């Protein structure tokens, strides 16, 4: 009995390892591969569609639809030189950058006041700003549209630059409050003992230390404003002022004759700036996303 129990494990080691590797493959790698394929397939499909000439795009009998047989840039050319697409890209970029700068600047000050100046009721202001983030744009756009019209901002980029901070600033403030918490208060106390004013402390000590937090707030604000749709749809009417997400859907889709190649090119190129931006800062992005949730 004893030697039976001792010797077989050694004899069985290679198959057991194989079984383990096999089990690991089936329970981990296979499902993970499925997830990655499903999550990325739409992007692959957009790319493939973009690169196909029309006769190939609508002919699944003679060409395998998963592959491109005779790639062409005809669709991209059409998008960039026969539509206002470059103009929409510039619009979106301007609006996103302006809204981002505005909201990050406003929320740095707010976060500093709430987290560092420690006035009475700071907690409640923080909570109110957090709750503001939970108000979805889809219940606000109708009254906001009337306000935008009344202020004479309808159909102007300024309407979007001023309204985007309503969902950007609460998020950034919340993120930066969390970030300021991680900066030791003693540093500020030291500076105060040395006779620095509060503004000097903010400018010379807290802000430089908070740069990573500012970067993540900026990334979030930029991607959120790049992706915004409902306000841009409701407040902008003329084609030349539209942002990419709205313009692709409303200007490129005309009638029932969808130019799928050009449409997919438009969708793909509209995603490229955020994807690039994101890939540079992916670690900031992931850590602040998860950090904000854990708060």
């Amino acid at each position, binding site marked *: 009995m004893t030697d039976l129990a001792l010797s077989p494990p050694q004899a069985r080691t290679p198959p057991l390892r194989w079984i383990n590797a096999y089990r690991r493959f089936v329970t981990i790698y296979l499902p993970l591969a499925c997830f990655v394929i499903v999550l990325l397939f739409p992007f692959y499909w957009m790319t493939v569609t973009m690169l196909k000439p029309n006769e190939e795009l609508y002919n699944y009998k003679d060409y395998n639809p998963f592959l491109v047989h005779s790639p062409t840039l005809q669709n991209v050319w059409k998008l960039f030189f026969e539509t206002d697409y470059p103009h929409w890209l510039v619009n979106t970029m301007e609006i996103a950058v302006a809204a981002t700068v505005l909201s990050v600047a406003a929320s740095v000050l707010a976060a500093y006041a709430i987290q560092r100046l420690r006035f009475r009721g700071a907690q409640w202001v923080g909570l109110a*700003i957090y709750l503001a983030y939970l108000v979805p744009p889809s219940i606000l756009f109708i009254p906001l549209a009337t306000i935008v019209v009344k202020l004479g901002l309808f159909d102007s980029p300024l309407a979007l630059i001023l309204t985007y901070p309503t969902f950007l600033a609460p998020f950034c403030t919340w993120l930066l409050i969390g970030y300021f918490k991680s900066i030791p208060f003693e540093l500020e106390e030291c500076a105060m003992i040395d006779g620095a004013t509060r503004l000097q402390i903010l400018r010379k000590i807290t802000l430089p230390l908070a740069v990573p937090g500012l970067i993540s707030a900026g990334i979030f604000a930029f991607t959120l404003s790049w992706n915004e749709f409902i306000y841009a749809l409701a407040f902008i009417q003329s084609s030349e002022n539209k942002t990419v*997400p709205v313009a*692709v859907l409303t200007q490129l889709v005309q009638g029932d004759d969808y130019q799928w190649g050009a449409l997919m090119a438009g969708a793909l190129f509209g995603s490229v700036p955020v994807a690039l931006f994101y890939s540079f800062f992916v670690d900031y992005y992931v850590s602040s996303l998860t950090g904000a949730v854990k708060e």
Partner: protein
Amino acid sequence: MVSLAATPEPMVRRDNWLTRLFDWKPFLVAVCLAPTVGLLIVFLAYPLGLGFWLAFTDAKIGRAGQYIGLDNFVSLSRDPIFWLSVGNTLLYTAVATIGKFLLGLWLALLLNERLPFKSLIRAVVLVPWIVPTVLSAMAFWWIYDPQFSIISYLFKDVLHWRTTNIDFLGTPWAARFSLIAANIWRGIPFVAICLLAGLQTISPSLYEAAMLDGATGWQRFRHVTVPMLMPVLAVVLTFSVIFTFSDFQLVYAITRGGPVNTTHLMATLAFQRGIPGGQLGEGAAIAVAMIPFLVAATLVSYFGLARRKWQQGESND
């Protein structure tokens, strides 16, 4: 203030005066909070209140409305399309949230294993969540094409499971589930990455202790992972429920509420009635009707799950 700063006074004295003002805490607090609070009051709190008011008027585009009491709500309560949109929204939120969380949790557990190229996989997986929803929705629109759908091709010509194309968006039920699938696709990365962060905070010693006590894999998951994940889960669930419930982009991009108004969510119906339809009052009433659901969903998902936190005696931060 501006005129004071502009007057050419001796540098030192002006600095002193201004510096002292900015060093005075109540003033500094007010200055720091002013931009954010101002923006939020003008463009968030005021519209929210105005929305309530508009819901009780017959405002149209270009015409201020008269107070008409509950007329908007009465006419909506007799409107089958409105009730269909409420039903759709509830179905959409419930099924999509469950799908997102089951698949997202699974993906998070997979990513929590020891893997090669883990950070690359994690970065790649998040891509569906960062690209503009409308643009990925257009990819789904094309994937759901009645004639040239790649999924139909796969089932029909590659696997030979079907003989006809799948009509993804042509019938109400197929369209609803197609939309839900697209929403789940977009939501999985966010849920997975957040839950992964939650998983990584669980101390391995808890699993070791459970293993020493002879817990099986399922028991470890059920009695260690799930309870430890609850606080993160509560927050992510609250966010997910709110933003799925008020979703607009996917439906607007893929079906525009069609076929024949059967896939409208409350948000898209509010838009259709309010902006292109011009009935601002009615649109605002639909938006206001979303608020009780949103509040209820938030309270249930947050307090229902966060309760554990204070039961465990942690500080309530």
